[in-house]
């Protein structure tokens, strides 16, 4: 636990113990405002040209849920998306749930106490290609690259945990906030949505610094493009006007979710040299094998035969750092998952790999093809996920997620 988290939890504890509530509330907010620049703010604004939860900092708790839409028609789909928008607006801002008196059960589950804290919650909604079938009259509105997720040669996909009409990504400071939001949204959309698959995840704390580590013990996300640099994001993540995509899609982004099992028992039986050569980085501090520090950039031109960083290492294949591959970079937003055990007692843990990009084929798919057959594939096994299109943002109080899409003839 970092100092930052420690202090925040301490203050929450003080508030819960009943030290003058008004004072405690104020105090609890102050460290949030004073936190380091990379820390997520306590309230992530819901409205904007783009949805939150894509380039906004990743807080530590997460759930990814894919749904199928069971609404009967286009009007039902519009109602559904308006309801999701309303709930997301409330949940991300926090506040007091509506009192319903004796006319209904309580409007809120109460798992976050009587007043819902924003807790850095973001709610990010994507649409899958199946939404553009004949049910809702949207077949002409499909983003041009959107399709059912490809099955790559190293995949072992379980159809029960693939695809979906909608994706919902929930991120917040704490798991109870994520689960509260999930319960709230599913409750308010009962009848119109059914969960297709779900995976909860968490972001590891920096150990001891830098990018968080995945279950293989390696830092993951070191080379991610700078999400705070708007120009880079415009070049890599956001779909712009006149991009060949439908007009409604401007401001959105292709979302790829891959549920990747990591065979950790097998991995732990591999020597450190072999582990590091498969990844291309040192395990202890995340430095590329030709560097000293995590922040050092690998210098592939000086190592053309891969004597130091093998040509088939993960980082070298994923991002060759050439001019030609610069626009193939993706914005990753991964979370570790831990899901109990296998039928043979092996630990079921891995990565919810999520990435956002402007062009599915130019970026994710090109990367994935380069990675085909990499040595790491013996230890990781993609088994689920899907391709989605993260909707453009909600720009004002009257706007709702998918309004532009549903306005499309």
């Amino acid at each position, binding site marked *: 636990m970092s100092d930052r988290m420690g202090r925040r939890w301490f203050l929450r504890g003080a*508030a819960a113990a009943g030290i003058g*509530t*008004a004072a*405690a*509330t104020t105090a609890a907010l102050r460290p949030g405002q004073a936190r380091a620049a990379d820390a997520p703010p306590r309230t992530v604004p819901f409205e904007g040209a783009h949805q939150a939860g894509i380039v906004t900092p990743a807080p530590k708790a997460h759930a990814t849920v894919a749904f*199928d839409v*069971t609404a009967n028609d286009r009007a039902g789909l519009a109602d559904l998306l308006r309801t999701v928008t309303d709930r997301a607006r409330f949940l991300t801002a926090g*506040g*007091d749930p*509506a*009192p*319903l*008196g*004796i*006319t*209904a*059960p309580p409007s809120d589950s109460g798992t976050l106490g*009587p*007043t819902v804290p924003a807790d850095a919650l973001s709610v990010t909604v994507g649409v899958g290609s199946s939404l553009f079938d004949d049910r809702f009259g949207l077949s002409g509105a499909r983003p041009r690259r959107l399709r059912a997720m490809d099955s790559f040669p190293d995949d072992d996909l379980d159809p029960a945990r693939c695809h979906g009409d909608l994706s919902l990504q929930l991120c917040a400071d704490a798991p109870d906030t994520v689960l509260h939001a999930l319960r709230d949204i599913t*409750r308010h959309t*009962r*009848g*119109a*949505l*059914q969960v*297709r698959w779900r995976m909860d995840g968490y972001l590891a704390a920096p150990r001891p610094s830098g990018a968080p580590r995945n279950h293989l013990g390696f830092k993951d996300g070191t080379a991610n493009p700078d999400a705070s640099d708007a120009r880079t994001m415009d070049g890599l993540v956001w779909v712009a006007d006149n991009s060949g995509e439908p007009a409604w899609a401007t401001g959105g982004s292709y979302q790829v979710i891959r549920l990747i099992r990591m065979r950790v028992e097998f991995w732990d039986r591999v020597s450190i040299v072999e582990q590091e050569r498969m990844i291309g980085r040192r395990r202890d501090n995340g430095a590329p094998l030709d560097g000293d520090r995590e922040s050092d950039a690998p210098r592939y031109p000086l190592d053309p035969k891969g004597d130091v960083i093998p040509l088939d290492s993960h980082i070298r294949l994923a991002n060759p750092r050439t001019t030609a591959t610069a626009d193939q970079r993706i914005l990753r937003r991964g979370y570790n998952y831990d899901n109990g055990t296998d039928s043979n007692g092996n630990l079921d843990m891995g990565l919810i790999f999520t990435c956002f990009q402007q062009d599915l084929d130019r970026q994710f798919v090109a990367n994935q093809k380069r990675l085909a057959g990499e040595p790491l594939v013996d230890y990781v096994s993609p088994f689920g996920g899907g391709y989605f299109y993260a909707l453009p943002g909600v720009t004002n109080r009257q706007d709702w997620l998918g309004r532009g899409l549903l306005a499309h003839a």
Partner: protein
Amino acid sequence: MIRPRMFRDRVAGRPVVAGVLALALSGAALAGCAAHRAAPAADDADGLPHTTVQVSLGRCGTGWSHPRSGVQVFDIHNASDAPTEVDLIDPRTQAVYGEVEGLGPGTTRPMQVTVGGGSYAFKCLPDDADAMTGGTVTVPGHAPAGPSAPAVSEQDVIPATIAYQKWIGGRMTVLAARAGVLKGDIDRGDLAAARRDWLTAHLVYETMGAAYDTFGAADGEINGTTAGLDGGVTDKDFTGFHRIEYGLWHGASAAALKPFAARLTADIGALRRSWPQARMDPLQMGLRAHEILENTVQFELTGRTDYGSHSNLATAAANLAGTREVLSGLRAQIAARYRALPQLDASLARLSGTLDGVGHGGHYPPLDDLSRTRREQLDAAADDAVERLADIAAIFDIRRTS
């Protein structure tokens, strides 16, 4: 099947005994604290306006001196020596906007309400004493109020309960006849006929869900599962429809099933003979209006109660019919209190239509044979229905009105 243990007891207009004692004790212990906490709470950690309201001997709801509309909290303090219920009502219509139940002496509890323009009064219902209504407070302006409904009293639901009880009596006659046919098949050794007649008998029982709690232990004997039985399907206490189902679909001989068939018809016969003396609690009506289908979601749409017949979908349809029977008796009362009744009707029609869409002429496929899309449609329809029926249970929680 429906399991009575899932159902909760609620306070239905009768004095709470154990609860009152506990509250009185904790009230005494905390009296010092409570006096401090009862001081006017300014705008609290919830960010809402707070008003402290007093209840004392012969006085109900004093302290609301600056009425304003909007979402707000009344911190209700009971300064009397008896537990009380406190409602915020519209004194003209008696519609209830908010309630605090079982407010112990010396304690303070919040009532959060959305107040609109109009007139309001606090109504106190002390245990073992008559109700009293405090002074009317007029809130200026035309802001919309939060949802409200007139309280449902025991008297309001008694006619529907009696009518339902009579309907159950009629169903018992049919149930006894069909269980007799099943027993005849097994006695005769015709197991193919028994598998057919098992279903028709069982489905009658599955329409009677609002009465199971009144049946008492007989429900477990007639329709229990292996849950809670150490020996599972071989446990000596596993009897009734599901025990016979298990045998009929797992190669048991007629001779092995004969005692279970005899036991089933005997249990049903005993229940039927005792029914004229039974008295259903009116509280059951609203509660079961939602819990019958809650059980369908939990036990039928998951296949939990399938002991071989794969008849969960037929059971779900019988459960829906049983829910509709309960609702039909309450319909006028619901209409007077529940604005979303048309949406509830539509939701139940959707569930019914979805079941019809997977069944053909009353013959339903096994749950696992449904395509993913079909199953999602069915689950969504059932989930939508239980979400709405929960409101009926909330409104029909029996309350004192005088």
